């Protein structure tokens, strides 16, 4: 279920590998497993569950699972967008700021312009996609590297949020309260959104033309355009998906926390999302990545944060762990990629 286009073949090939008998069936199984990028991170995620549950038995209690799901879901949604972009060879640093801005847009639309709440939410999502369109335009048409272009839009969007909100938090508009439980307030609401989005974009990335072209554009831009793929269109489209997802994640988070906060989201959220994507096996160089890996990456980060809290370790070493996790997963990526390239070493 969790195979990507690129990992599918390795697992097919692995059992046929010659010269493995020396190490036995276990080795073959282990290698085949390790070559599935999501598998390694799944092991880590499960290992953490076991460890934290062993240390604190409340870890798997209903309430705490809700906590974990809520500190995973918005970042996993952001990470899905980043995976698509990273696979197509780009990155969006401004996604976290779209996350922050979008609930404000909803609030302005409802409270200042009297827009019908569900329409206001749709407008915010379109605004997010529009910001993605602008990012994509600057990157593709004006040829500014996405790292720099979205660094610019990061501050620009933050400026818009802070100026229009005067840096004060806002209340969820009363008119929108009836929608709250659908959009993040209910216990599992964020998780359901997150899983639906992950499932949808997993299929998009692995089973549709859009996904295939996204991989092609990131893997070999020149070759992709030679084949007649409109690389710019693919990239801009992925920027727009990123923007829309970031806007949605921001709105969900605002409804859940019952406040629209200019300090939520931001660069912190963006970096957690990129980390989740990278830990989940997405290559920054483009051409490969998995949406499910990103979900698992976000899960691992949420587990760590939550588990540390429970055990009573301060939140301070969290970044220490996060940093190590990123470096280790990148090292694994590089070396597993070599193993995969070599085929049957």
């Amino acid at each position, binding site marked *: 279920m969790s195979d990507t*286009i*690129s990992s*599918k*073949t*390795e697992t*097919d*090939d692995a059992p046929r590998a010659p010269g493995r008998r020396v190490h036995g069936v276990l080795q073959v199984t282990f290698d085949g497993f390790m070559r599935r990028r999501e598998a390694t991170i799944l092991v880590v995620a499960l290992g953490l569950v076991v460890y934290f549950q062993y240390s604190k038995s409340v870890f798997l209690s209903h309430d705490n699972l809700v906590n974990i799901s809520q500190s995973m879901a918005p970042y996993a949604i952001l990470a899905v967008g980043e995976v698509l972009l990273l696979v197509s060879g780009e990155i969006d640093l401004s996604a976290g700021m779209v996350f922050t801005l979008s609930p404000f847009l909803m609030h302005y639309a409802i409270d200042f312009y009297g827009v019908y709440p569900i329409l206001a939410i749709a407008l915010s999502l379109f605004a997010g996609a529009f910001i993605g369109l602008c990012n994509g335009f600057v990157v593709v048409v004006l040829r500014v590297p996405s790292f720099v272009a979205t660094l610019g839009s990061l501050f620009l969007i933050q400026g818009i949020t802070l100026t229009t909100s005067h840096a004060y938090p806002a209340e969820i508009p009363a008119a929108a309260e009836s929608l709250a439980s659908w959009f993040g307030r209910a216990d599992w609401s964020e998780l359901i959104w997150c899983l639906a989005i992950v499932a949808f974009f997993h*299929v998009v990335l692995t*089973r*549709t*033309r859009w996904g*295939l*072209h996204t*991989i*092609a554009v*990131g*893997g*070999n831009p*020149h*070759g*992709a355009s*030679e*084949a*007649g*793929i409109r690389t710019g269109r693919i990239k801009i489209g992925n920027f727009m998906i990123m923007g829309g997802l970031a806007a949605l994640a921001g709105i969900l988070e605002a409804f859940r926390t019952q406040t629209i906060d200019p300090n939520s989201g931001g660069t912190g959220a963006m970096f957690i999302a990129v980390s989740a994507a990278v830990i989940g096996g997405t290559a920054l160089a483009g*051409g*490969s990545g998995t949406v499910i890996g990103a979900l698992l990456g976000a899960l691992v980060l949420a587990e760590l944060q939550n588990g540390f809290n429970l055990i009573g370790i301060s939140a301070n070493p969290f970044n220490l762990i996060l940093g190590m996790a990123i470096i280790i997963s990148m090292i694994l990526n590089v070396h597993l990629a070599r193993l*995969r*390239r070599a*085929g049957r070493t």
Partner: protein
Amino acid sequence: MTDTPDPQDATGTPALQVEHIAKRFGAVAALTDVSLHLGKGEVLGLIGDNGAGKSTLIKILSGFHRPDSGRITVNGEEVTIKSVDHARSLGIDTVYQDLALIDELTVYHNMFLNREVVRWPLLSNRTMRRLARQHLDELGVRIPSVDAEVAKLSGGQRQAIAVARSVYSDARILLLDEPLAAMGAKEGALILDLVRDLKARGEVSIIIIAHNYAQVLEVCDRINLLQHGRITFDKATADTSLQELTDLVVAEYRATRTGGASS
């Protein structure tokens, strides 16, 4: 009349005819006056030293550059090749050395790149896999599996897949740019076999651009030598020899050296 069974018969309508093509880049005359013709089903070897203008000629034929003057005729009709897409729509496809394959994708996804079989909204992977396997088998291209990631294949296999893809996309005039460069003898044989198979099928006409021509000689019907932006030699392979070609190239090399020293 239009379909000449004998590929070496230049009186039939050629698949491709180039007349008096010239191209300058600023002060540099890349091509001064190039005329060549390619019969239907023919394999033409285009050889020449570095800087003779081979790559400029290819880029003109594949739509990257426009010639300053001259005529290009495809199947008897004069054309102005406007773009790479336009060249392709005329049936002219170039397989470059730095292949346009996507390493991260499987063989069959590469074969069908941008021409995917889709059962909306999903890709019909099974159909593409089957068709790719069928097509590669027909052409006698041997690869471990169409499911293999292209990155895992050897240089020869990759090249063969790129050629097969062009043929599959209805290319009728194939330009192979240095198909044997940086390739071992065994790998090279794979490509030469493929060219022979294509020749036997007679559907495509091929120009092989080569710097090292010893191997290429085996499969070509005719050899053209490009020197200083013009074709200086045009003979059927049967009427020439490796020795003659080597002598020509060496003589040219000597001439340029002494010429450069004296004047």
